[in-house]
């Protein structure tokens, strides 16, 4: 995709939004320029940056914990047919459950604060990463493992030089697929038992203060959060998995 085409797309979306605001002509749909003004002033004068940072922290912590746990576990399951056959039924049952239904449960158990939000993001990403890394590790060719073993690699070196780099694309694909969902569920989680985070900010501006431009500024910030994460994963993939982009 060319950068120029992306810019065109942004312009087109803003134009559609602007036209829609003109047609609707009610406070519940302010024009993009109005929202942009509020966005800037909320950034500088309000606490939009603070809310953004809290949400960002929650997502990043969830990503870090899920990658840190799911990737090694996925490699272990992918390496061992026995372990895999023990845990596969469990994963098979848990993987398709939409983790968002656990939001009330997690909130009940973990109460207020950052932890329940991070745990929810962790739950969403964990299974996605686990399954993709497991399948990736299991699909490594025995020829590759044998020839690296013949160079002297034991378990630790195989992990470092084969399994780890082989699972990187799987981790990044899992993140790309589920980071959007994670942000969406974060929004829901932030509606409850917190006074910080973009979800809270959007809800407060829209439903309590009836400050629609501020609400839209929050929506825009949350979209930027999702987009930013997506682009970061994209960038990491191009940097760390160069070999997948050559032909």
């Amino acid at each position: 995709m060319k950068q120029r085409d992306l810019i065109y797309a942004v312009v087109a979306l803003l134009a559609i939004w602007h036209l829609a605001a003109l047609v609707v002509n009610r406070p519940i749909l302010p024009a993009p320029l109005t929202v942009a003004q509020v966005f800037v002033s909320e950034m500088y004068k309000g606490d939009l940056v603070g809310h953004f940072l809290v949400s960002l922290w929650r997502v990043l912590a969830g990503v870090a914990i899920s990658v840190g746990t799911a990737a090694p576990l996925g490699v272990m399951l992918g390496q061992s047919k026995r372990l895999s056959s023990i845990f596969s039924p469990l994963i098979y049952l848990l993987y398709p459950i939409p983790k968002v239904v656990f939001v009330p449960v997690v909130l009940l158990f973990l109460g207020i604060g950052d932890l329940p939000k991070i745990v929810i993001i962790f739950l969403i990403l964990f299974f996605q990463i686990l399954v993709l890394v497991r399948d990736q590790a299991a699909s490594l060719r025995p020829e590759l493992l044998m020839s690296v073993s013949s160079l002297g690699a034991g378990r630790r070196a195989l992990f470092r030089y084969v399994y780890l780099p082989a699972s990187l694309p799987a981790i990044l694909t899992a993140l790309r697929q589920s980071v959007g969902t994670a942000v969406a569920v974060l929004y829901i989680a932030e509606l409850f038992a917190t006074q910080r985070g973009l979800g809270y900010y959007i809800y407060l501006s829209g439903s309590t203060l009836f400050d629609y431009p501020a609400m839209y500024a929050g929506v825009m910030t949350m979209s930027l959060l999702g987009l930013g994460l997506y682009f970061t994963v994209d960038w990491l993939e191009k940097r760390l998995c160069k070999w997948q982009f050559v032909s």
Partner: protein
Amino acid sequence: MIEVKNLNYAYNNGPPVFQNFNWTVAQGETWAVLGPSGCGKSTLLYLLAGLLFPGRGEVRIHGQILARPRPRTGLILQEYGLLPWGTVRQNIELGLRIRNFYGPDGKHAPLAHQQQDQPTPADVDDWLARLGLAKLADKYPDQLSGGQRQRTAIARTLVLRPDLLLMDEPFSSLDAPTRESLQNLTLELCQEQRLTLVIVTHAIEEAACLGRKILLLSQPPNTTPPATTLDNPNAGQLGYRQTTEYFELCRSLRSQMEPP
């Protein structure tokens, strides 16, 4: 150098592939192991590589029973042995990195005093140049031809200065001219580096032109006797492929391989 004594091997309680099999390889010999698919020739190679272990009997290299891959044994497989995420250079460096990862522990890498001439990172450049890979150093395996990939695999193995080279059908997926040039290169390198070579192949011509000795395996279980060994002292000499001796050998091997 290699002693295989009373070797018994079977996959997961299946029928035996080897039964009381004996075989000896002296240092500096070049052996071709020839046989039809499923005869156990690759199994034999993996047993020599320390990647499989006999049910009964023993495999010794330099008098030592194998318990793991030996640091000075090099193994080259038909395909897929290169890291797809590593460039040619990174793939060639891999063995050195693994050795640095463990240090000279005698298990994964030779003990410091066992190998005076330890390979160095500078050797990587030498091998890149020696095998004509210098210009491809930053390419990934997906960007290479089959022959270039196999050259990379050879460089990766030889940079570790092995004394024993094991090859499993290394050239069977290559086109004829590339195959021939790599066969010649292998012979040249074996002589130059004083390597003992065991190459497994199903191609009669390859066995006849590479192996100064040929081990002929048949449908399992392989036992000695009757597993046969043949001498082929002129293999590897210039123009050997055009001699009547070579054609005669190929014909005799073919008749021995065909089921009666």
